[in-house]
């Protein structure tokens, strides 16, 4: 996701950060406008379009029969896939998912998997032979920064939107979603931490940390990114931010 950015612009954003300001006028702990629209894709069992400012991510959920993994014969299967579509950014290319798309998918996956947001044990049908597989496909449509939080929110909203299929032998009253993990990404620029980096900020940030928390405020997943570092104190401060903002974001999950 390397994008050229001029030194002037870089210095400008860095100077703003030093003063606790941001390029789009937000406070350091302020998200862009968040919108979550569910159910627009009828060919998916569940779907959600999330906008963080100009960033747009569409997530669709398909639930299909599958064979369980050999080492977990009584457990459903969760598969998260992310596509950084070339229509979303001039820096995204066609072809198999690269390291950024893979990291994105895996960070979203871990938030859902590790919080046990879906009770995969309930998705078994016939031990060792047949289980429900939940595919979450994340489709980045317009990239203006912070695809991780938008994708994690879209994935959860799409899961919560799942309608029990009527026309097949669906074996459950509904998809057993038991938790609402929410990812909050914090960028570090010139020593200042700020939530929900926009693209300009991503292009100049030293590093980012994504902290995914559940309803009780505990962590279920973390991922540091970027080539800079965090001090111990910064990590603890980031956790405070993540906990606070996750409440706001979770409210959009209804």
């Amino acid at each position, binding site marked *: 996701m390397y994008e050229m950015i001029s030194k002037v612009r870089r210095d400008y954003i860095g100077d703003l950060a030093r003063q606790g300001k941001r390029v789009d006028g937000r406070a350091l702990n302020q998200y862009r406008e968040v919108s979550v629209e569910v159910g627009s894709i009828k*060919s998916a069992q569940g779907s959600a379009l999330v906008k963080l400012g100009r960033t747009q991510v569409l997530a669709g959920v398909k639930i299909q029969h599958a064979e369980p993994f050999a080492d977990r014969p009584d457990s459903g299967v969760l598969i998260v896939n992310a596509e950084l579509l*070339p229509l*979303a950014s001039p820096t995204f290319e066609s072809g198999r998912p690269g390291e950024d798309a893979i990291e994105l998918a895996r960070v979203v996956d871990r938030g859902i998997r590790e919080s046990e947001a879906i009770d995969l044990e309930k998705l078994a049908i016939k031990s060792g032979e047949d289980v429900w597989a939940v595919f979450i*496909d994340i489709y980045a449509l317009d990239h203006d920064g912070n695809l991780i939080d938008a994708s994690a929110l879209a994935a959860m909203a799409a899961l919560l939107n799942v309608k029990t299929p009527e026309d097949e032998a669906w074996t459950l009253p509904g998809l057993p979603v038991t938790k609402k993990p929410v990812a909050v990404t914090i960028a570090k620029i010139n020593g200042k931490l700020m939530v929900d980096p926009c693209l300009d900020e991503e292009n100049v940030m030293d590093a980012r940390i994504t902290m995914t928390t559940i309803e009780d405020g505990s962590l279920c997943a973390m991922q540091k990114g970027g080539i800079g570092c965090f001090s111990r104190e910064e990590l603890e401060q980031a956790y405070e931010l993540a906990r606070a903002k996750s409440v706001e974001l979770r409210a959009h999950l209804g």
Partner: protein
Amino acid sequence: MEKPEKLIIDGKRLDGRAPEEMRPLKIEAGVLKRADGSAYVELGENKVLAAVYGPREMHPRHLQRPDTAVLRCRYNMAPFSVEERKRPGPDRRSVEISKVTRQALEPVLFLELYPRSVIDIFIEVLQADAGTRTAGITAAAVALADAGIPMRDLVSSVAVGKIDDMIVLDLTKEEDQWGTTDMPVAIVPRKKLVSLLQMDGNLTEEEFKRALDLAFRGCEQIYQAQRQALKEKYAIKPEGE
């Protein structure tokens, strides 16, 4: 699902349309911020997004052409756009559609104005219900205009087909599956020239002529909707360009 006994009952199709009636159409220009141009098309249950990038420098360099820009096109279906989840990545069908889509659009562009450049068209089918390639061409033409790329004309596209021995406009998935014939057409409207034509199924000479008639009329409707969408986006200029 089961094959219905008839696809036309009392002159009406299963979704209530008349044979020559198009599904509800919605076109919106400029829906994405990063892309140089973009458009969103809904035609019945089809939801298609198109984005245009360029003209921009072509990389890698050995693909540059000294006398002209290169036009590239990628038609792609979202995994969740169809009944059975589609595995990501191009299949043979999408490779062919990408090629004919590119050739349907190229006649209206002045590629020779941008040597060594590339213009990229990306079409994403978010929800599919038959007619996605024609909806994609319709969207892409609007996205090209939205990108400010000089064009001789728009390109307008729709499919016609044969069901229960009748030539009809704009097949649904059900009609495509159980009908006899599918014929996607794209037209450069002002000169009434056909820039895309494919067909599979069966058509007699009479039927072929009737199918062409209907395709031309359908594309004319598409064309008006494309112009309207561009007008709305560029409201100050009364004429989309």
